């Protein structure tokens, strides 16, 4: 049984355990009244009833993996802060903008109090005295819902001085960006929060846990990661790890978009659900549109190397997807059916990363732009054979050596696991190359045909039309 709600566009509820989406069925889930009526702030009360260290133990025992992209366990991350250095800050990464990703915006719009409660639990446990909640600039409704929720929570005594009559005091400050993908990288997020251009910092020395906001120890956590904490504190780490697998416990929000019958956002059981379940299962997307053939899919956001139908049976589990040559990233799957024009599809992603390069590292600033230019002329039918090798050469200057790609025995490709070598500070540069590399290694004949036929084809028309453009 699945249900959808007009007030939560895209979200599909099923008969599965719900950790972060339990209130999505209510149209007023963002109000404090509904939140309190549905066990709201009980996790905070449970946390305040125990010492900070045991809250931390609970989070560590649950192995709550970071949901932003890197998948680093939250409890371990909190533990990396140096002893006796004060103050420490919490920065919430709500700058969701990885292509294909749609989950944090839903969590902020539909259940802002759950996020606030998660922030409070993290601050209490790790001794963080101030929290900055950074929401992407373009998300006006999310900013509005979180601002309203914070005002309600302050008035009701859940945030601010002496929370619920305890010694625990913390301010949560709503901060919002102004449109820059790279700010989703944690050190760039901190730069932006300091009022600067959002350019990533060098690591080392700027590991945020030791040297972050204003040079102080700073924890940067993703919205979904923190949204898990209220449920965890209410139900305990044993109940949490009973869902999913040992290495990937709990649930995950996953968005499946592109050429499927019913695109949607699902809360799935972590580590168990396979890509085949998600794409073809009746409780999920119900198959490829018009019963077309699946050509390829991006398993973990625009930065992830692509998979082909060969990898459909992999579960949503980092330890299996990594060795297969890609990553789970931010839980975003983009599906391409057989009508997709692969070079044009790759261009939509490469253009994104070239556009979003902050310009700090030369290989990304120049290389990304050249990847876009060369690929554009290939797609427009004015490229040459030499352009295809040129793409690889430019890409190799961003990520030298073996670049990860989906393993494909037929093509003699063995996967190279992450992390790969890169000449840039952050992953924006390699991300511009990932779609080009995947597309070119898996579907080289399509690029070659494009070079020969010299024809512009749309990415894929809505009704499979093959109409070209006058321009």
């Amino acid at each position, binding site marked *: 049984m699945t249900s959808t709600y007009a007030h939560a566009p895209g979200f599909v509820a099923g008969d599965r355990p719900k950790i972060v989406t339990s209130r999505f069925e209510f149209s007023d889930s963002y109000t404090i009244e509904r939140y309190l009526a549905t066990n709201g702030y009980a996790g905070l009360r449970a946390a305040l009833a125990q010492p900070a260290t045991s809250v931390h133990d609970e989070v560590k025992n649950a192995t709550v993996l970071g949901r932003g992209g890197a998948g680093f366990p939250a409890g371990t991350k909190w533990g990396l802060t140096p002893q006796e250095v004060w*103050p420490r800050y919490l920065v919430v990464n709500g700058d969701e903008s990885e292509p294909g990703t749609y989950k*944090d915006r839903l969590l902020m719009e539909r259940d802002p109090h759950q996020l606030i409660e998660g922030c409070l639990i993290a601050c209490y446990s790790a001794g963080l005295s101030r929290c900055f909640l950074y929401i992407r600039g373009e998300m006006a409704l999310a900013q509005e819902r979180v601002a309203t929720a914070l005002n309600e929570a302050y008035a009701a005594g859940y945030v601010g001085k002496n929370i619920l009559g305890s010694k625990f005091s913390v301010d949560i400050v709503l901060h919002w960006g102004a449109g820059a993908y790279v700010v989703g990288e944690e050190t760039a997020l901190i730069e932006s929060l300091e009022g600067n251009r959002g350019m990533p910092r060098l690591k080392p020395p700027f590991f945020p846990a030791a040297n972050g906001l204003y040079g102080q120890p700073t924890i940067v956590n993703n919205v979904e990661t923190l949204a898990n904490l209220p449920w965890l504190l209410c139900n305990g780490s044993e109940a949490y790890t009973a869902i999913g697998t040992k290495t990937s416990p709990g649930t995950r929000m996953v968005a499946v978009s592109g050429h499927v019958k019913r695109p949607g956002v699902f809360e799935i059981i972590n580590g168990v659900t396979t890509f085949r379940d998600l794409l073809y299962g009746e409780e999920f997307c119900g198959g490829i549109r018009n019963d077309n053939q699946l050509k390829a899919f991006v398993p973990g956001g625009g930065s992830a190397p692509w998979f082909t139908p060969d990898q459909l049976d992999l579960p949503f589990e980092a330890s299996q997807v990594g060795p297969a040559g890609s990553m789970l990233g931010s839980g975003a799957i983009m599906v391409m059916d057989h009508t997709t024009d692969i070079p044009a599809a790759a261009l939509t992603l490469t253009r994104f990363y070239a556009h979003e390069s902050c310009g700090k590292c030369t290989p990304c600033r120049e290389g990304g732009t050249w990847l876009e230019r060369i690929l554009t002329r290939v797609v427009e039918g004015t490229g040459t054979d030499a352009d295809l090798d040129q793409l690889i050469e430019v890409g190799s200057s961003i990520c030298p050596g073996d670049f990860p790609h989906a393993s494909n025995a037929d093509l003699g490709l063995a996967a190279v696991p992450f992390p790969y070598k890169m000449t840039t500070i952050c992953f924006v540069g390699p991300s511009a190359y990932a779609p080009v590399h995947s597309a070119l290694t898996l579907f080289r004949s399509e690029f070659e045909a494009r070079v020969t036929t010299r024809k512009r084809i749309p990415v894929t028309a809505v009704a499979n039309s093959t109409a070209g453009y006058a321009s």
Partner: protein
Amino acid sequence: MSRLTDANIAIAYEIIGRYPRPKSALIPILHLAQEQDGYVAQDAMKHIAELVGVTPAEVFGTASFYEMFKFEPVGKYLLNICGTMSCALMGAEELMHHAEKRLGIKAGSTTPDGLITLEHAECQAACTEAPCLQVNYRYRFKMTPGELDTLIDDLAAGKLTDEIPAHGVLATVRQRIPAERGVGAVAPEKVNESPQWLDGKPAL
């Protein structure tokens, strides 16, 4: 145009007060200026520099990094059509071509009557609802060329003024921290002790 109004100066000081260092308030105050004038005026940036205690060049340095800040007036409605993969797979290119033809302008420009500025946008985090667009940062999902025509007609007829505020307005609710409830921001160098609730014990 235009320094911040007295009412906005008060809001700006309230925002600055939430951060341990004033410069952190730069982006929110730039949004405030854009809300006031519809774009970020040069005089506004000079004024913000005074409020935050940095040079005007630093304000422009930060502002010019971020796509949402406009330094010249834009149309009444900023129409951002997403063109990244999920939307492109579902017909965003066709939608953009239709918009350009219908409005008689290329992406990146404004209609002669000043009603609509058309822009190509990157992923807007509504990938399952592709193709999507935003009008002054308010979403429209699963758009067809026909629905886009209706939207443009409605915007021209002034039918959506209640639903879609002027360019520059993001959240219509501001965070307010009541003085008696707020902990207050302290510069990091003035804090040497562990938070009170830890009772002097290590946090982790």
